[in-house]
């Protein structure tokens, strides 16, 4: 595995006009993993203010919102733009047996990590086999 794949940027996916927020709203790229005891969601939120992150869990839908930390001051004249600034929004259908109280969120280098623990009944259990 010596050949590294060169990264390609995906253009930010803008959401339709159903929101009331000012400015564009983008759909962040995510990875979703399932491990034995939890699900993990990783969302790319470059430029998002970690204090603005809003995660809600309501009847099997997880809603993620984030706002931009700051835009350059007015004295900075844009010369060239390859990406746009805006907020982020995405919704996920999630299994119902998530332990909602145990959901945790952490931001690191512009990536949100959400850990959604499975409720106790759903976790794999090892059944001890007893010798007769």
């Amino acid at each position, binding site marked *: 595995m010596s050949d*590294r*794949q*060169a*990264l*390609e*940027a*995906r*253009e930010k996916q803008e959401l339709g006009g159903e929101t009331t927020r000012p400015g564009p709203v983008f759909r962040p*790229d*995510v*990875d*979703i*993993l*399932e*491990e*034995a005891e939890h*699900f993990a969601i*990783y969302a*790319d*939120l*470059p*430029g*998002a*203010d*970690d204090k603005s992150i809003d995660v809600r869990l309501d009847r099997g839908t997880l809603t993620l919102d984030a706002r931009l*930390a700051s835009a*350059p001051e007015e*004295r*900075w*004249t*844009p*010369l*060239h*733009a*390859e*990406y746009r600034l805006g907020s982020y929004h995405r919704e996920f259908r999630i299994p119902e047996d998530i332990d909602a109280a145990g959901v945790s969120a952490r*931001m*690191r*280098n*512009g*990536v949100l990590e959400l850990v959604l623990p499975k409720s106790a009944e759903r976790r794999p259990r090892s059944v001890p086999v007893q010798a007769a």
Partner: protein
Amino acid sequence: MDALLSRFGGTAGAGPARDWRGVFPPVNLYESADAYMLTAELPGVEPDAIHVSLEGSTVTLHGERKIDYASREGASVHRRERQEGGFRRSFELPAAIDGDKVEAAHRNGVLMLRLPKSPEAQPRQIEVRAS
């Protein structure tokens, strides 16, 4: 990994000299009277995995974005939209840069490079006196 030199400024319009679509990381460039500011979206890249160099008025960013799920035993990936890999991009700025005063910050997954123009490249006020 292709090295790509983007030329900023130049003659025609505000657009870049080459098509940048799909090139990582996407960057924005701003100008003030005394400096340029280059910002790059690099979510998930550790600050020490980002290398910035300056040669004349050419800035080069290179590094790698690593996503390691394979080492997590028993994990199954349900959705994979985020990519990993190496990157290298070079940009030629429209004016000379004072290399000793370049500042770099990495916040919220965005690299911000402040590149002061060298004194010769800054606008100067020339006083007009009545003779």
